[in-house]
């Protein structure tokens, strides 16, 4: 077969700069051929090499007592959870594919992150998702396209997760015009394993056979990694072949077969074929193993005839794995693949020369030092624009509105409304572990394999990050930790997903740098090392970059089932307390955005030391049995937090609350979003103990009211706001479903 000659145009089309090309020539000592150029272009894409973000990622704390596999070492980090058990977890984005083809884009995102987890030898047990879409309210221009994206993404996640039998037990979804046309789809997966079951993605043992198993390779998803490393344009739709098609049934078979295989002791190394497919898995395993690898593409199971080496190597067909088998145990491996009816082939062997050598048609078609692809990718220190802090909001510029109506409007806004329309489409109950399912501060999951109660929360706030990237970074970590604390858990570690625009723009790079620094600072404060994550850059649509949206998923452990705490009030007659006394203006609040259409102000800053003390004191109070419910005050301020505590439980429970006079306007007192505040309820006979508990620890705690009645009543200074619980519930519970299901619009064919 004849390959195209290498021209400047072809080099540029591969996203390779002249400097990078010179570097490739230096490594090879010659010009690359077309196939080799393709290999370099995907391996040196941002998606695979983190060339623009790597210096920033190094700022994250990655070590800790519980770390068994560190960030960057393998497909996912692994943390000790005690008694010889461990958890492997990671979050990953599939933003660009989902923008083009929401159903398959989201579905294959789920498939990819699940493979990352079982590649580690872990049994995946649950998922979380963090989603962002443009406005879906009917009066907004373009909202039909956003509804189409939401609908497609949710059904894509449901399709894959439900079929494979993994519950999606929590998540978050926000709606804002910044994400129109560039939705964010970040999916988290967690698996459990014994310490001794940790599998490595290294090609070890010279002469060991290399097996390919899973779906046949086709032309789908050609060079998706390179595609994901570009901005979305009007023409991106033509990239549709770069979006893969998912087959969750095949993945379920692959999952079961791989876990059986790993348990058999036949495996020397294992690696999934995700981004950059066969290329990435072969050179990464060789590079990690300090070995070489020799693969014959003629032996690769293929879906169609006439595929070129370039296409086979760059295909991102889903549900495929590369397995390095201990020599002599090939038959046991074949038996397992045959039991599960999976296509497989022995396609090569491990060598000792450090070279990734690819053959086809009896010829060597590519010959590249494996480590040059993984370790010698260029690293860019991008230019950052100087930061000009935003001006604080002038309260006088915010016209007073009807605050009673405002709470109802906030609760019915898709960002704050109940996400039942989404999570009822996910099988969140399979595996019988969702002790606290979707809709509370953190999900609590009983991993039956090890009997551990795990808590997990995923958080990000693009608006705050836009206004103040460093604070946005701190805020999402502090909020995730706070959500875990509210559920009674001790945080163990975190995984991050950095969703940003084009880092070549100094303004964007500054956002990336500052928010990573904020996240890193907070992770150190909470002693939650980052175990790995994902970077998604070039999130731009024709109108500009998205608001920078770092997202963090944090995992915690609940020591005793009795410590599990929910956000909803438990019944009448309890005291309501506010922990952490802070006040602020409406800067960066959802109130200001949703009701006044303004993204403005200087967001109130997270005080990390105070946060750590607050959360630790709350956990102690939970352990002491003083807490009946706990809820983080976040988006929508204390008014929304009170409403959610009143209406999110199995029974509606009213409350009467007097907010302290903080010398501000009523709308500020009700809706400001100063971090570091937690709303708890406690049995009346425990008031004295609770007061002393927090006083002893120097944590401001104020009794603000009592639960009971058919209304939520909030008194601020002279005003007396009251809402019938039924109205709050209906505004919060029904709005998303009403928006999505009552609009008749054709869905794109899947």
């Amino acid at each position, binding site marked *: 077969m004849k390959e195209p000659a290498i021209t400047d145009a072809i080099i540029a089309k591969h996203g390779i700069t002249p400097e990078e090309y010179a570097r490739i020539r230096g490594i090879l000592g010659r010009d690359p051929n077309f196939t080799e150029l393709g290999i370099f272009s995907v391996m040196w894409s941002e998606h695979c090499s983190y060339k623009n973000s790597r210096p920033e990622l190094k700022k994250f704390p990655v070590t800790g007592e519980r770390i068994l596999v560190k960030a960057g070492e393998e497909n996912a980090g692994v943390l000790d959870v005690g008694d010889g058990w461990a958890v492997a977890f990671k979050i990953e984005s599939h933003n660009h594919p989902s923008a083009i083809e929401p159903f398959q884009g989201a579905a294959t995102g789920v498939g990819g992150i699940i493979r990352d987890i079982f590649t580690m030898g872990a049994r995946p047990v649950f998922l979380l998702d963090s989603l962002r879409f443009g406005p879906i309210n009917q009066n907004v221009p373009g909202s039909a396209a956003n509804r189409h994206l939401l609908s497609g993404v949710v*059904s894509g996640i449901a399709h894959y997760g439900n*079929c494979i039998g993994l519950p999606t037990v929590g998540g978050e979804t926000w709606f804002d015009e910044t994400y129109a046309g560039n939705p964010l789809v970040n999916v988290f997966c967690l698996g459990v394993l014994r310490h001794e079951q940790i599998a490595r993605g290294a090609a070890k043992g010279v002469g060991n056979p290399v097996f390919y198993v899973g779906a046949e390779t086709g032309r789908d998803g050609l060079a998706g990694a390179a595609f994901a490393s570009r901005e979305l344009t009007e023409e991106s739709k033509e990239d549709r072949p770069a979006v893969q098609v998912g087959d969750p*049934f095949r993945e*379920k078979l692959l999952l079961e077969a791989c876990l059986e295989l790993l348990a058999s002791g036949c495996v020397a190394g294992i690696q999934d074929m995700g981004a950059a497919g066969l290329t990435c898995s072969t050179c990464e395993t060789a590079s990690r193993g300090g070995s070489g690898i020799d693969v014959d593409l003629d032996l690769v199971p293929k879906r169609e005839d006439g595929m070129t080496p370039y296409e086979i190597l760059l295909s991102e067909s889903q549900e495929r794995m590369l397995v390095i088998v201990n020599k002599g145990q090939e038959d046991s491996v074949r038996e397992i693949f045959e039991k599960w009816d999976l296509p497989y082939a022995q396609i090569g062997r491990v060598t000792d020369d450090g070279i990734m050598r690819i053959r086809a048609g009896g010829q060597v078609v590519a010959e590249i030092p494996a480590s040059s692809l993984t370790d010698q990718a260029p690293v860019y220190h991008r230019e950052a624009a100087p930061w000009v802090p935003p001006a604080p909001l002038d309260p006088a510029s915010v016209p007073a509105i009807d605050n009673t109506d405002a709470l109802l409007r906030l609760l019915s806004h898709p960002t704050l409304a109940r996400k039942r329309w989404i999570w009822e489409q*996910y099988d969140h109950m*399979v595996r*019988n572990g969702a002790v606290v399912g979707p809709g509370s501060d953190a999900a609590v999951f009983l991993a039956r394999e090890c009997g551990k109660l795990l808590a997990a929360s995923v958080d990000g706030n693009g608006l705050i990050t836009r206004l103040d990237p460093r604070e946005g970074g701190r805020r999402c970590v502090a909020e995730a930790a706070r959500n875990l604390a509210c559920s009674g858990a001790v945080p163990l570690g975190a995984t991050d997903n950095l969703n940003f625009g084009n880092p070549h723009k100094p303004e964007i790079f500054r956002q990336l740098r500052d928010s990573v620094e904020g996240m890193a600072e907070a992770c150190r404060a909470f002693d939650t090392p980052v175990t790995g994550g994902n970077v998604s850059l070039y999130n731009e649509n024709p109108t500009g970059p998205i608001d920078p949206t770092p997202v963090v998923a944090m995992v915690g452990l609940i020591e005793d089932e009795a410590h599990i705490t929910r956000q909803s009030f438990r019944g009448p007659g309890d005291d309501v307390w506010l922990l952490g006394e802070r006040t602020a203006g409406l800067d960066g609040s959802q109130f200001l955005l949703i009701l006044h259409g303004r993204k403005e102000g200087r967001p109130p800053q997270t005080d990390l030391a105070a946060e750590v003390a607050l959360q630790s004191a709350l956990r102690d109070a939970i352990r002491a049995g003083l807490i009946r419910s706990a809820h983080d005050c976040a988006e929508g301020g204390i008014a929304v937090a009170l409403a959610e505590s009143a209406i999110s439980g199995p029974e509606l429970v009213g409350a009467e609350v007097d907010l302290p006079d903080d010398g501000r306007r009523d709308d500020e007192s009700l809706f400001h979003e100063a971090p570091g505040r937690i709303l708890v309820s406690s049995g009346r006979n425990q008031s004295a103990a609770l007061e002393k508990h927090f006083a002893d620890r120097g944590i401001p705690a104020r009794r603000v009211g009592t639960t009971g009645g058919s209304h939520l009543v909030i008194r601020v200074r002279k005003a007396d706001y009251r809402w019938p619980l039924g109205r709050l519930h209906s505004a919060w519970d029904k709005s998303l479903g009403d928006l999505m299901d009552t609009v008749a619009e054709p869905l794109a064919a899947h």
Partner: protein
Amino acid sequence: MKVAVLRFPGSNCDQDCLRTLRDSFGEKAEPVWHKDTSVTGFDAIIVPGGFSYGDYLRCGAIARYSPVMRAVADEAARGTPVLGICNGFQILCEAGLLPGALVRNRGLHFICRQTHLRLENNTSPFTRAGSIGQILRVPIAHGEGCYFADEETLRALEDRNRIAFRYCDADGAVTAAANPNGSLGNIAGILNEAGNVLGMMPHPERACEERLGSADGRLVFESLLGTALAATL
């Protein structure tokens, strides 16, 4: 009691069923691979939920051809209790062990939520521990759970007391609003003519512990246990 839990490629509630039987009831339960040609020596057989063969064709349409299903039919004919849950119900319908079909939910979405069920039959091996009209809280999780059958079949189910459960509201009223998927007659579970095969869309194995939201599903397993016990006396 010793229970067989079938395992098809794509089954994903098999582990939940095994664990529930072992951990919540202390019974013996064993997985049986779909390629096996016999399923003898068990007191009951469970066809669990999941997406057998991905459900890319009609749900259960391929699984019914697995070798083990012939053995299941033989055992059913011999009177062994067979319980199909969710995808298992779909498979039993495709295999002809139960009448009717499960079609796409009325609202077209997959739905996972708690539902209320009204117990309509308390003579079967799966429901004998209950009383007629008893209300159970048991979750559903399916995209194709809308029960459909022709009028004649429906009449036969009604007349011969073969409807085991109907969706109802918290007070036991069988209403359209309480019907999550559009099933005819709010049907959530049906029995075969002999009464020893039950298919139900709700998942009783997910409702055996209060901490998961409900323990009402225990009734199904307790009934089975009572049946097995009675058989050995």
